[in-house]
């Protein structure tokens, strides 16, 4: 049986949701992983989308964070101000799922601009959206990003969403109440913050990946945990459900 690196990444992210009660979901891989988790091991996982759909149970993967399917299957549909003020901000939600164009060693995220000059960027990215407050207020943050030196940089060009800022104590100083990014899942492995330095450390490589590959794809001197964990390959059930989801899902 074979699988793509993206499938491995999505499965690893879905596994990490086991035991979590609620998840603030962005579109794309996070949404795929969260919906896979609901089908695999967490049927009661509460999916909250920033469009205001609380407890959505999409029968097919939504293509946008505001698909009608999300509203039709949600426990409650609330206004956008309400979903941010009453649901996200108080820290009710266990896991916030974020993507990143750039990610630094302290888990700070850039989705705003590439280049030094904010006013005249090399590349203008979409911007913050809901990410800064998701990163600030969810109890924990998972980040999903493909591994490359372009993405994993020593210092992000723009801090859109705060991870551990400039290191230990930064979140407390800033009054950020969530724990911050406890997990980064990539197509090569899994990084976790060092408990002392808060620096993202390679704690796990996916089946068939060499740690050297990961270090080579990282823009800073990546620390590697010893012993280094190994992600078990996707099971047939995981791959089957994932492919079913991506193919359009079990329409009910």
């Amino acid at each position, binding site marked *: 049986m074979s699988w793509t690196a993206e499938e491995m990444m999505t499965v690893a992210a879905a596994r990490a949701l086991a035991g979590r009660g609620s998840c603030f979901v962005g*579109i*794309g891989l996070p949404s795929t992983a969260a919906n896979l988790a609901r089908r695999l091991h967490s049927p009661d996982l509460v999916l909250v989308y*920033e*469009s*205001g*759909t609380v407890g959505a149970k999409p029968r097919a993967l939504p*293509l*946008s*964070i*505001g*698909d*009608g399917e*999300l*509203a039709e299957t949600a426990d409650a*549909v609330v*206004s*956008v*101000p309400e979903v*941010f*003020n009453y649901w*996200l*901000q108080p820290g009710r939600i266990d896991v916030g799922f974020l993507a990143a164009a750039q990610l630094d060693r302290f888990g700070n995220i850039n989705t*705003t601009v590439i280049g030094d000059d*904010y006013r*005249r*960027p*090399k*590349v*203008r*990215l*979409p*911007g*913050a*959206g*809901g*990410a*800064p*407050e998701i990163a*600030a*207020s969810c109890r924990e943050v998972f980040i999903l990003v493909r591994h490359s030196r372009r993405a994993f940089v020593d210092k992000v060009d*723009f*801090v*859109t*969403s*705060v991870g551990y*800022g400039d290191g230990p104590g*930064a979140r407390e100083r*800033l*009054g*950020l*109440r969530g724990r911050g990014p406890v997990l980064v899942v990539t197509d090569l492995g899994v990084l976790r913050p060092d408990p002392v330095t808060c620096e993202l450390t390679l704690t796990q490589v996916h089946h068939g990946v060499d740690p050297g590959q990961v270090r080579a794809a990282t823009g800073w001197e990546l620390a590697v945990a010893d012993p280094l964990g190994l992600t078990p390959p996707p099971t047939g059930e995981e791959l089957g459900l994932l492919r079913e989801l991506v193919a359009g899902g079990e329409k009910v």
Partner: protein
Amino acid sequence: MAELVGLAEGISGLVRDGDTVALEGFTHLIPVRAGHEIIRQGRRELTLVRMTPDIVYDQMIGAGCARKLVFAWGGNPGVGSLHRLRDAVERDWPAPLELEEHSHAGMANRYVAGASGLPFAVLRGYRGTDLARHTRTLAPITCPFTGEVLTAVPALRPDVTIIHAQRADRRGNVQLWGITGVQKEAVLAGHRSLVTVEEVVDDLDPRPGAIVLPSWVVTAVAEVPRGAHPSYAQGYYDRDNRFYQEWDGISRDRETFTEWLAEHVLDPAGSPR
């Protein structure tokens, strides 16, 4: 009481050069046709406000309507960049575009403050981000009871707010359901408002999840079937995901965009997209 008008009349009556204009609709019920009418009428120097600028704002920016953009996330959902927005920011085409950049939570609360007649709103946000360095419409604020430092954002009060809804009755009461986003706040925050609707009906029978904007807080209502395409109107039509994908190609270069605009928006005989 809201006046029932034609779309062209509604836009010409409410939107002026230099206005601050908000078109809202969070993925669902995006007032795309109203944006096209603003392009057709050649409005200029607009400050465009929107939580999630997407295709219709890409079109308005590419068409040269905008001087400034107040926003939180500007992209083609599920597809990628907004090439016209990027061309304006990165290369000043067709004109330079000033950015006032916030987060979704910040934008939503700015509308809430506007709707509430307050000069500002308070939230937990922005602290430690570079937005706090580049966006002037942010300020720290200290809780007078706990001493905790939070962030204040100023109220948004658009000159005109434009939204799309499923239905209105003949007296101008507006009803929308499904994902209703920030539309109520945006309309109540605006000095004037235009609501385009799928249909005008005799009676607004109650619907689960529906909100109603009473006629007396709406300036004008225009019947514009499929007015939200390529976004969707729950109960009327689905999202045209293919067009979102096609837009990436259409908008990538200036020529294909300009041709598309001429054919589908500017040419009254053209087929609306």
